[in-house]
């Protein structure tokens, strides 16, 4: 339809790439950050989501390849996350065990397990998740490609307000918040902090596993050992940035996804200088957020009171 001059987007391409990047690259951030948000609301920190992400990516790809059903892959990715979450949830609640240390061990365990079982699945091409095409109106192939949205992204985008409502307006949400803010008070209410935290960590890991599935079954759509490149850890920083609010997690994930697309997009329109700097955009963003949100004078608003503390 369009002549090359028209379809070459130039600077619009950068905006389009960032827009597409927010949705493509933001999906794993979204799921991991929502999972971490749920976990941290209950007072536990799970740094192991990086390992969960890899395990999810691997199992989703493997199951999709073996059974031919990508949706089954997504489910199994969630279940593999659930299993890793159960280990973390149980282990991190033992006496004198530190969440962060267990989390780091779980990163190594999860990624090691994923690499071990993932060996035979690097080569084959697995069926990918179908995409929802929102660009029927456009003749421009670039716009069409940018607006191919993953159903997982929509699922995540719906999950964020749901979690917000869940925390603020349901009994179960109250339990989680109570356990996270003051386990002693929760125990007095007759709630078992152990069980609530266990379930929260497991559910959070389930979500992170699905985030992994979106990496291997949607974008970039392959299974390799370098697929996650630290996104699981960045998502933890993102939760702090979002002040433990699921709706803000959604916005923060979009921001991080867009930041990832910035470097390549700018190079493609001929901004030749400083690509290392642009490529580092997501990491710089993480640092800036940490500096802006951390202050010795005040504690963070919205932080669960008993976050990461030893259960009394």
């Amino acid at each position, binding site marked *: 339809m369009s002549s*090359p001059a028209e379809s070459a*987007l130039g600077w619009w391409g950068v905006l389009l790439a960032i827009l597409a990047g927010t949705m493509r690259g933001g999906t794993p951030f979204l799921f991991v950050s929502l999972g971490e948000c749920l976990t941290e609301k209950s007072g536990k920190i799970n740094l192991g989501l990086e390992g969960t992400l890899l395990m999810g990516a691997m199992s989703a790809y493997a199951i999709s390849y073996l059974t031919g059903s990508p949706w089954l892959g997504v489910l199994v990715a969630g279940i593999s996350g659930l299993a890793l979450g159960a280990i973390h949830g149980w282990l991190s609640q033992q006496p004198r065990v530190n969440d962060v240390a267990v989390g780091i061990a779980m990163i190594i365990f999860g990624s090691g397990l994923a690499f071990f079982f993932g060996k035979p699945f690097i080569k084959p091409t697995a069926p990918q998740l179908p995409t929802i095409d929102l660009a029927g109106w456009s003749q421009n192939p670039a716009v069409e490609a940018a607006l191919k949205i993953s159903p997982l992204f929509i699922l995540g985008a719906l999950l964020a307000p749901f979690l917000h409502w869940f925390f603020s307006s349901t009994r179960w949400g109250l339990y989680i918040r109570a356990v996270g803010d003051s386990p002693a008070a929760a125990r007095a209410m007759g709630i078992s902090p152990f069980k609530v935290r266990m379930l929260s960590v497991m559910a959070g890991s389930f979500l992170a596993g699905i985030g992994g599935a979106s990496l291997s079954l949607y974008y970039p759509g392959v299974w390799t050992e370098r697929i996650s490149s630290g996104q699981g850890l960045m998502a933890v920083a993102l939760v702090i940035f979002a002040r433990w609010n699921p709706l803000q997690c959604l916005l923060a994930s979009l921001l991080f996804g867009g930041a990832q697309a910035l470097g*390549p997009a700018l190079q*493609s329109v001929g901004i030749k*200088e400083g*690509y290392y700097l642009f*490529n580092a955009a997501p990491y710089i963003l993480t640092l800036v957020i940490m500096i802006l949100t951390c202050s010795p004078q005040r504690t963070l608003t919205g932080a669960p009171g008993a976050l990461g503390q030893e259960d009394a």
Partner: protein
Amino acid sequence: MSQEKLFHLSRRQIVRGLLAATAFGVTTKFGTGCTASTSGQADAGANAGSGDGEQMTVGFIYVGPKDDYGYNQAHAEGAAGLTKALTWVKLVEEASVPETTAVTESMRSMIDIDGAKVLFPTSFGYFDPHILKMAQEYPDVQFFHCGGLYKEGTHPKNVGSYFGYIDEAQYIAGIVAGSTSKTGKLGFVAAKPIPQVLRNINSFTLGAKSVNPDVTTQVIFTGDWSLPLKEAEAANSMADQDVDVLTCHVDSPKVVMETAEKRGIFCSGYHANQSALAPKGYLTGAEWDWANIYTKLLTDIKSGKTLMSGDIPHLLRGGLKDGFCKVSDYGPAVSSDTKKAAEAAKAKFMDGSMVIYTGEIKDNKGNVVIPAGTSLKQQDPKLEEMNYLVEGVIGSIGS
């Protein structure tokens, strides 16, 4: 405090546990040690003489998985081809070995336990200090490293290095890309601006410009050898900018090839054959042909030649003519005229009359880098210090 009881261990339990662990360790060590030592003896015999029917153990170490459609797969296919060609070669392999002391341990166990006499630690970063250290420790084992870092005099005599001028194959891929592209815009996803990568980009571009002088190559540097997400972003954003042939120089071209196919544009492979990933858009590709080189090397070793005596050159290099690399079979989108042009160039490489870097060549800032009348042949050391992008490449090597 009742939970603490859970972890209480009596002294008796600890002693029992220690004994069990020791017994387990001893039995497993005994089992593997036993099988390895027999093969070790057999190999020692094979190494000394050139008797037929005796096995020789050859070790291959890869930095990534063996089936990544990339650098490691190219080497693993070479190793598989070697065992097929020479039945007396016993192959031991280890994949995903990081460029740390882990590779030292892998080499040591291949030598001590498996009895390997020839090792191919293939990744670039294995060389210094890991291979050098092991080479001093085991002077009768021959180490072949892919890269070309060997320096006469400073490095041990039992170390050799080999590398191919794969940019010749990239030049031919460039001819195919340049004549197939409709928009005249080619895209190159590159990892880092180092000489080998720049040489591939430049040769690809010069090949394309030899058939269509107006062609441009857009380069995007991702910053590292394996960043799937960045590679996908780079491929997508170039597709957005009307680039219609994509190629790359990263460890695993899988993401770039699949993204190109998804976006309905052409692609040109690297390292290994990726036509299975992009059945419609795969034009051709620059592949390594390590099976050929490995078979030659091992045949030489079997006939009694060694690095130590100098019968096998310490620096082994070559291009298309010497069988270090090859060009993938042409895909369905390549026209017969294009094939003819590509084959003509290939024939010139094969008879040695082709020199890619013949002046005058300007860089993309307008400076003359190779003056008219000068031609830098394949082996010219100046080409190994390449620090420019030729005219027609859009991109910059400065960070």
